[in-house]
């Protein structure tokens, strides 16, 4: 165990000692500050005060209804048009506040952190880059030879590398979370220890904790992150080429949804990895992409893919001769 922790220290050191890793964190920091500045400039984040929030919500509703009317007159859109129904949703939500006499929450650090869950795709991207390099780079530098002639089994070396990738993802996630909270506090203020807001759930609108929403939002994104990182790690070990691994993994991550919709009418479409990585499709009253899919089905498919990725990675790394380039 001590041995394994020392291997982990080595791998973490090799990740964090490099300037390119720090550049990743700087990019994330700039994105977070940029989002905060944008939100601060273009949205009135301080409109619901103790005295006027009821009036404010009613004004909003009226304005939205007018907007819809004008939009329908201009374009002749039906009632189920996306734009119309989006506005109607907002009106319903505002009514929920009014009916239940809940003052809408001031925008603040927690909600900003929640809105930043979109950044998890950037975290996925960075994790893919790390996963793609962690084995392939050792081959490129030639250091793989010195790494594998120690009295440590190849299994353990590979495991330390895989765990290191997951640790990197975890640290980066924590960074996004904490930095968003800090930046959010600076820009918008802090809403309190456990703020609540109204959002649409399975059984209609509900008044729930922002923090639990943050965890479920980040949690769902983690599925995709881990799968893509594992995939990149596999390509990296099998082909010993980080560029290839980054390329394929990012392409699939970007094109995943298109691939599923392209084959959407085929019988086997639901077995495609990317049809299953978004477990959120089963929550919050969403309908699954393809009829007949369930949470259990998706988890099974994900597990099968995961085991295949891992098995290929392990077989190629531990059984193969380390020959010259």
């Amino acid at each position, binding site marked *: 165990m001590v041995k394994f922790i020392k291997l982990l220290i080595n791998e973490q050191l090799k990740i964090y000692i*490099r300037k390119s890793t720090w550049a990743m964190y700087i990019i994330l920091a700039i994105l977070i500050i940029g989002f905060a500045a944008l939100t601060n400039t273009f949205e009135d984040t301080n409109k619901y005060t103790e005295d006027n929030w009821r009036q404010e919500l009613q004004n909003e509703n009226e304005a939205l209804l007018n907007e819809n009317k004008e939009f329908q007159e201009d374009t002749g859109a039906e009632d189920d048009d996306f734009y119309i129904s989006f506005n109607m949703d907002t009106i319903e939500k505002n009514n929920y506040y009014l009916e239940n006499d809940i003052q809408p929450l001031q925008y603040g650090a927690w909600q900003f952190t929640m809105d930043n869950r979109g950044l998890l795709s950037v975290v996925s991207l960075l994790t893919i880059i790390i996963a793609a390099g962690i084995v392939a780079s050792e081959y490129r530098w030639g250091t793989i030879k010195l790494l594998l002639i*120690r009295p440590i089994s190849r299994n353990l070396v590979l495991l330390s590398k895989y765990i290191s990738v997951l640790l990197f993802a975890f640290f980066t996630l924590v960074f996004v979370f904490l930095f968003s909270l800090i930046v959010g506090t600076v820009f918008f203020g802090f809403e309190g220890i456990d703020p609540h807001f109204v959002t649409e759930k399975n059984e209609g609108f509900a008044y729930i904790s922002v923090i639990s929403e943050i965890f479920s939002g980040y949690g769902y994104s983690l599925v995709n992150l881990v799968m893509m990182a594992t995939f990149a790690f596999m390509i990296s070990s099998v082909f010993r080429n980080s560029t290839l691994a980054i390329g394929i993994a990012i392409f699939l991550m970007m094109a995943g949804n298109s691939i599923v919709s392209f084959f959407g009418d085929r019988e086997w479409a639901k077995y495609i990895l990317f049809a299953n990585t978004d477990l959120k499709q089963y929550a919050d009253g969403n309908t699954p992409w393809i009829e007949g899919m369930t949470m259990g089905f998706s988890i099974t498919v994900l597990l099968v893919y995961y085991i295949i990725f891992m098995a290929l990675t392990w077989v190629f790394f531990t059984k193969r001769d380390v020959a010259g380039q």
Partner: protein
Amino acid sequence: MSNVAMELVNVKKSIGKKEIIKGLSFSIQKGEVFGFIGPNGAGKTTTIRMMVGLMKLTDGDVKILGNSIKSNYKEAVREVGAIVENPEMYPFMSGWQNLMHYSRMIPGISKGRVKEVISLVGLEKVIKEKVGRYSLGMRQRLGIAQALLHNPSILILDEPTNGLDPAGIREIREYIRKIAKEQQVAVIISSHLLAEIEQVCDRIGIIKNGEMISIQSVKDQEELEQESLSQVQLEVTPINHAMNLLKEKYEIDAEVNDQSISFEYNKADIPKLIQFLVSEEIDIYQVEISKVTLEDKFFDLIGENVIG
């Protein structure tokens, strides 16, 4: 305990259908410096990769202090320090960080030991600098430091003099002698240049096409040379007459090259032979005597400029 540090037993390696290593068997004693010589592509690096477990053996076994690299990998490799091909290190880390990195992979290496090894190879001044800025010689030394960290019983150096200047080569040679003698470390050095390592080795194994074609003791070789035959080259006219005389009197079958004839003969007896030729009115323009060196033997054995 026996004195054998490493033993190869009928080691074979096939890649696809091609047999690259065709059954190597030899052993190396503690404190011995063993030169592993062969032309490029003869199978030196492949053999070394099998010795340290980077490649699997198709057949046979490698035993390190009695532990098989196949069945007892960790115990076996614990006793080996090696540089395989180039001394490649992490360029973005300092020499110190590189050594600490490897020291964490083997239990029982203290910071004191790391410092000791650094001063042993004389890298104190640059150890905090990034390896990316090191010269090849400095990296070679860092490679040796890395291989020595855990006090191995066997040190394997693959082409350690590659890319070094003459001073660097000399330094490495002296250094190898020192650790072999003082710490009873068995050292295996591979090279395709015999001249570079001839002086440092106790024994030299010559490999060609995956086969060990000769193992010679260097010391024996020197003793042999004292009394052995020398290569004699004579520029004489008329050549045919001289050849006949040598054949009749001394039973020498000489070879003709351009204006001269060459043959092997005992150095001590050469003056008499010359006197005889002069007395027979042969004109002698030049006499050249050279020792048959290990290098000549090497070329004899492997053939010049033949690869594979």
